[in-house]
């Protein structure tokens, strides 16, 4: 219901906009439609002149042509307005988040009690502000002290609050979001007018929408075609006068008909829809919760042929799962499972839980209450790289092989060769080995398996067909990485990836002529993001990452990259398909118009009238009515984009040519014939 209301509002707004866009200044931005606009003015003037007995054609006919041309212009305006509509609605809601609030500006971060209250709009880069629970964050900044949960739904639409804290990769806060708890001291990184929210509003609204390079190039082609058709049509005046003099029959063609011919031939369909296609593409990206910082980026997304994908979350499920217990000789599997489960009882990580579950499934070992057992939990730390429990004088530990080895050796035990072998084998198979020990005795290894997501293999296969190479980025060692890469079917992988290695990899591919896309969130990703052709920064990421990227993923989802490529490609395909359709249309329009145009001079030319159109007037009217209506008819396609498939270029071209090339040849023949029949029946021909 609410959605319907919104759509209705967009529609009403778009109709209003169609008229306001009639201003010559707006029209001039689209040279193809400007020609139609001038044609409409000229035919209107010709109609008005008929009152002064200056007749170019019958007054009624001229009026009909003039009206159809005005509608053509309005339809083109409407297409653009409706494409902008969704963005405008989104911008309005964003704007409500961007209100001017009072900010507590601190003299220094040391003392939060000394502040002056200033409006957020007057804050400068480098200023320090203090925000408390329940207040709105006045402007973009970096947290320099404190930690708090922040509601970012105004921007991301995601209602669950996120943690923001000083230091690390979660220090960036965005103006317009609200603090849900605690307090933060923030250093301002962007001034009013340049904040993330401002950029976002400008982007979704299309206000700062610059034409993308490909759009500019296409526009140049359209202008060139329009110039040719302008010359073709204009020279017909002298040609036809000369011909009628030579033939001693008929008259030259009228100015009204010259204008009608020009409008028919000019690539008005694509000219009218070009900017709508671009805006709609951007809008689709916004709907996927991705914010492109420029239109250029979305085009580059279509060109990308190397995807750097983070293993975790994109290729594998975020969490590894325990799949096998491998005891060493002399230890039963059940004993190992028991110890493993005990060590994981208080371990709340997904890996830990999966160990408890596996032990239960395999040996029906119930999870026990750690308190009832009187055990104390030893949590995982980056230093020890182990976790476990101390229980009835026993120390049970599980952790990385090296860490457990050190633990066992320190307790006076020894680390068996066999365990080392198992660890190696598990790693080679793409798993993560966790070694379990009790006091000074090694019990065995838990095989933690990376679970490759369902369907990714097929997905990568499809991408490969389109010529897109997938590269898995992982911190794992090369052995593990290779095994997962093989299972997931990626083309290549970068193991033990460091930011430097990523940057080098991107440069390497770019030097070979590839366009590379990646996602990143940390500050140390920034150089690689800046180097990549399409760089998607996670919204949860740092300010540096966001600035280095050319897109921001508000959902911070690692799979988004594939969607972005799809949207980019679809945008380009839609543009190409409608251009082809528009140009192909001209053939039928010629067959409709040319024979009847010179009928009075050379009646024999009716031999070309293969469509059997009734008269010159009905044929021309039918052609320009078709020309206007096709714009309206194609608006949904322009907004939705053409059908996208992941197949090789050749097949894609074949399919699109068949639909839009051949379709573009045939459709107007049928439509113009039908319109001509209708006009004849109505007695308007």
């Amino acid at each position, binding site marked *: 219901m609410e959605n319907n209301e919104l759509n209705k509002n967009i529609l009403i707004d778009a109709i209003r906009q169609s008229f306001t866009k009639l201003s010559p200044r707006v029209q001039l931005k689209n040279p193809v439609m400007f020609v139609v606009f001038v044609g409409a003015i000229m035919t209107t003037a010709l109609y008005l002149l008929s009152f002064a007995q200056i007749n170019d054609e019958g007054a009624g006919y001229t009026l009909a042509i003039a009206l159809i041309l005005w509608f053509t212009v309005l339809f083109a305006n409407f297409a653009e307005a409706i494409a902008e509509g969704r963005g405008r609605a989104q911008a309005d809601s964003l704007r409500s988040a961007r209100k001017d609030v009072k900010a507590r500006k601190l003299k220094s971060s040391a003392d939060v009690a000394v502040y002056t209250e200033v409006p957020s709009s007057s804050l400068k880069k480098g200023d320090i502000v203090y925000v408390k629970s329940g207040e709105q964050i006045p402007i973009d900044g970096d947290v320099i002290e404190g930690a708090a949960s922040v509601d970012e739904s105004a921007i991301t639409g995601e209602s669950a609050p996120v943690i923001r804290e000083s230091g690390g990769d979660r220090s960036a806060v965005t103006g317009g979001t609200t603090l849900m708890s605690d307090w933060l001291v923030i250093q301002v990184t962007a001034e009013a007018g340049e904040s993330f929210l401002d950029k976002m509003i400008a982007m979704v609204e299309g206000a700062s929408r610059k034409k993308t*390079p490909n759009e500019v190039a*296409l526009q140049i082609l359209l202008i060139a075609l329009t110039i040719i058709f302008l010359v073709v049509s204009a020279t017909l005046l002298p040609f036809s006068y000369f*011909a009628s003099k*030579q033939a001693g029959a008929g008259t030259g063609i009228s100015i009204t008909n010259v204008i009608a011919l020009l409008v028919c031939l000019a690539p008005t369909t694509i000219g009218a829809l070009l900017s709508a296609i671009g805006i709609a593409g951007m809008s689709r990206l916004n709907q996927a919760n991705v914010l492109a910082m420029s239109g250029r980026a979305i085009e580059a997304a279509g060109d990308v042929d190397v995807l750097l994908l983070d293993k975790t979350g994109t290729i594998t499920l975020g969490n590894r799962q325990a799949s096998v217990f491998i005891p060493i000789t002399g230890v039963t599997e059940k004993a190992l499972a028991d110890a493993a489960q005990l060590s994981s009882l208080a371990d709340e990580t997904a890996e830990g839980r999966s160990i408890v579950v596996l032990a239960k499934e395999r040996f029906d070992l119930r999870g026990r209450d750690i308190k009832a057992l009187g055990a104390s939990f030893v949590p995982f730390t980056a230093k020890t790289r182990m976790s476990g429990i101390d229980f009835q004088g026993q120390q049970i530990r599980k952790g990385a092989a090296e860490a457990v080895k050190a633990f066992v050796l320190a307790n006076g035990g020894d680390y068996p060769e066999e365990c080392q072998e198992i660890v190696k084998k598990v790693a080679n198979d793409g798993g993560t080995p966790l070694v379990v020990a009790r006091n000074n005795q090694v019990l065995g290894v838990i095989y933690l398996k990376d679970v490759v997501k369902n369907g990714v293999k097929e997905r990568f296969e499809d991408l490969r067909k389109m010529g897109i190479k997938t590269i898995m980025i992982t911190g794992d060692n090369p052995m593990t990485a290779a095994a997962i890469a093989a299972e997931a079917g990626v083309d290549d992988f970068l193991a033990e990836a460091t930011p430097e290695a990523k940057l080098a990899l991107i440069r390497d591919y770019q030097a070979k002529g590839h366009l590379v896309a990646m996602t990143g969130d940390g500050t140390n990703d920034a150089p690689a993001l800046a180097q990549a052709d399409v760089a998607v920064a996670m919204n949860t990421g740092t300010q540096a990452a966001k600035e280095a990227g050319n897109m921001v993923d508000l959902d911070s989802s690692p799979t988004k990259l594939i969607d972005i490529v799809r949207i980019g490609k679809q945008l380009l395909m839609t543009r190409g398909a409608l*251009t082809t359709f528009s140009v192909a249309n001209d053939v039928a329009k010629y067959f409709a118009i040319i024979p009847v145009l010179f009928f009075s001079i*050379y009646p024999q*030319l009716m031999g070309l009238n293969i469509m059997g159109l009734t008269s010159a007037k009905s044929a021309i009217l039918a052609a320009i009515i078709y020309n206007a209506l096709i714009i309206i008819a194609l608006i949904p396609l322009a907004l939705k984009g053409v059908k996208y498939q992941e197949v090789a270029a050749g097949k894609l071209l074949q399919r699109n040519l068949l639909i839009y090339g051949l379709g573009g040849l045939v459709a107007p023949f049928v439509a113009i014939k039908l319109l001509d029949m209708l006009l004849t029946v109505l007695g308007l021909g």
Partner: protein
Amino acid sequence: MSQVIIVDGLYLVILVALSIPLGNYLVKVMTGKRAFLSPLMLPLERMIYRLMGIREEDEMSPGHYVLAVMVFSGLGLIFVFGLQMLQASLPFNPENLAAPSWDLAFNTAASFVSNTNWQAYSGESSLSYLTQALALGVWNFLSAATGIAVLFALLRGFIETKKTTIGSFWVDLIRVSLYLLIPLSLVFSLVLVAQGGVQTISPYHEIVALETGITQSIPLGPAASQIAIKQLGTNGGGFFGMNSAFPLENPTALSNFLQLLSILLIPASLCVAFGKAVGDMKQGRAIYLVMLILFVGALAAVTISETIGVPLVPGVLDSGNLEGKEIIHGVGTSALWGTATTAASNGSVNAMHDSFTPLAGLVLMFLMQIGEVVFGGVGSGLYGMIGFVILTVFMAGLMVGRTPEYLGKKVEPFDMKMVCLIVLVPPVFTLLGTALAVLMPQASDWLTNSGPHGFSEILYAFSSMGNNNGSAFGGFAANTVFTNVVGGLIMLIVRFVPLVAVVFLAGNLANKKMVAKTEGTLSTSNALFIGLLIAIVLLIGALSFLPALALGPIADYFTAVI
């Protein structure tokens, strides 16, 4: 009919067979590698560089390259104009011919410098031997060499990456002339002389006609040497007014066949050279095939129309449309010649195109109007076609979901601007020239026919000049101040605006990086693309000229048959 098919088939087979080694040879020459003629020419080449004070390795930026072409051609224009105006007081003028009018001299100069070789003059009655040899003969070589040089500049644009230079115009010009045009022309003119072509500096010959007893003057001159380059360099300007329909210019059936071959030989071999130069023979083959398919289609249409497109008169042998044709050549090779000369921007004739059937005339006109890209002029035909390729890539490329690219180079706004200039300028000026002409009050007095055929005569003339072809339909009095001046300007504009655009396109392409080829890249060498390119070439041509053609040959056809 079967004989015609055999000759046409033989022609195409020999053409293709010769074009392959020649194309490969040309790439070797243009990249400075050792080739067949190197032992002979290399010392000469080096000597010329020393004399000119240039160094082989000094490459030019696009701006510098354009400047060199323009200054060189500008001086050529002045030289050819000046020599005509001064011919009366210069030697080698046995017939004491006076200087032509200024407008005619300008038209002729523009015509030869732009590789059009439109002839508003008649050689034997207007120009001295000195003017013919030194002005026209020399510029037959130089304008052809300029076209090929610029083509190779464009090819470097595709080959090089991140480079700001595109080779040296002087080096290109000298290599093309020394290794290709001069040796080929030398051999070919000797063959022509052997066949009975005339090559002398003695005055015209007085003879008494056997039948009538009237004294006739037979024009002579250093013709064979100029005829060889006229065909090889897609110039087409005849030594004599009647061009290759004149026995001393084209004496035998063999000379006719060889001249036919030489019309398309270099343009065809450039397709091979293109593939070789860009390191992907399939790319060259694709363009070659597009040109061949369009050529064979046009040839079939012209031949069929000339053979059956005339009313049968009872009791008269069905010989096809022989009006305006030499019996020695007949309908078959005249149709082949007409197609070849308009497909390539050659413009020499061995029959009167004015007398072709309306639909055959339409095909000839259309071959010019699509921008002289079916083989086209030496160099210019291929760079024009590459313009269409980029246009096609641009429209089709988007449909595979990538921004368009050709041979690893992305097509961006600047490239598109240049391509539009290449493709747009000829049709626009053809139409504008025709429109201006029909607006002249005396236009109908220039015509020998009225009705649609009269309009065809004007449209053909401006299509010929507006696409640097130079062939004449006939029936149109071209030597008027209006046509000389307007036509001369049009020839210069349609030659040099696209040419300059090509050089800047080359510079912009050379500066780009190379994009890797993947499964997602649009193939520009498969059957689908070939078909698409043909469609785009025909479509752009048809969209630009269908209305004008409807008032000319199409109306001519319908008024004749109905």
